């Protein structure tokens, strides 16, 4: 639930970030340096998206973003708990002889 709420709050920021990150991919050949950059900075990018696409532009990709939360956390939590126990025992075993000597 809190993941969903934060997704809705942060989605526009994610869109702005993605635009800034991706802009070099679509540049025409022959452009040099930052001369052909379409977006500059967070606020200016936000204004551009708002002007061209309104609220829809700010929330593009919200669907897959929310869709991805659940499997991400489910897999992460399941694997984290079991692999942490695995590493604990593995390290515990490695540590045992050393601690025996130290004691």
């Amino acid at each position: 639930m809190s993941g969903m709420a934060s997704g809705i709050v942060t989605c526009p920021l994610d869109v702005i970030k993605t635009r800034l990150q991706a802009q070099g991919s679509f540049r025409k050949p022959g452009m040099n340096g930052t001369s052909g950059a379409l977006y500059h900075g967070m606020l200016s990018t936000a204004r551009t998206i708002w002007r061209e696409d309104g609220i829809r532009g700010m929330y593009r990709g919200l669907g897959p973003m929310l869709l991805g939360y659940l499997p991400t956390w489910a897999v992460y939590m399941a694997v984290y708990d079991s692999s942490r126990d695995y590493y604990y025992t593995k390290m515990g075993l490695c540590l045992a002889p050393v601690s025996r000597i130290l004691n």
Partner: protein
Amino acid sequence: MYAENRWFARIYASITAGACSTLVTNPIWVIKTRLMSQVGSQAPEEARTPWNYRSTLDAARKMYRAEGFRSFYSGLAPALLGLSHVAIQFPLYEYFKLQFTGLEMGANTTTMDSDHHWVGILAATFLSKICATSATYPHEVLRTRLQTQQHMYPASSHEEISFRGALGSAHIRRPPGASSSDGMLNLPRYRGMVRTVKTMLAEEGWRAFYNGMGTNMVRAVPAAMTTMLTYETLKTSLFHLQVEGRRIMEQQEEGTYT
């Protein structure tokens, strides 16, 4: 020694878990990135993406048809590389927290008057997140660039022919795609991580690797601070509950004896 090992176990576990969840969810993130970089009809020509997806499902269908299964796993290598983020953030967090509060991660204070303690936790999260993000941010740009590049089959039309990267095509003996109208080879701009880095350096310079980092900080730092504060609060209240529980049980035991 023991505490330190537990600590490594936690970092390893979080990298393992992160790798598994990345493998499972990468297709969703590729679709997300592609939808987010898509622009509206009012946007100028040079901002247009070569694709136009209506929805998540539409994107998945079109990607599968035009580019095959492989496209769902584009950007996987930098995504996995980005898992090193935790290996920087958590040790730094522990270090800063120890400096500011004198406590380890998850350790508890016995006194409740710990405003100083919360400020320390927030400051430690803030600093560790900023350091880890600055250090590992370029992987995000690489991932986005690879995710937003189409894996085209030999192009059938003019519009589908993608741009060649600035490094030209001298490294490839056999052309993977068809030729464009000017007789040059139709090659993707980015191929693999190393070549992507080289192409970006040649075309845009090193600054491109930090595009959008400020925005990312605005998004990620408060999120990390909330998460950390929640985690530490839960830990502390759990600890106090245990203390309280023990006290009640002792009282009850005393009660049965008297």
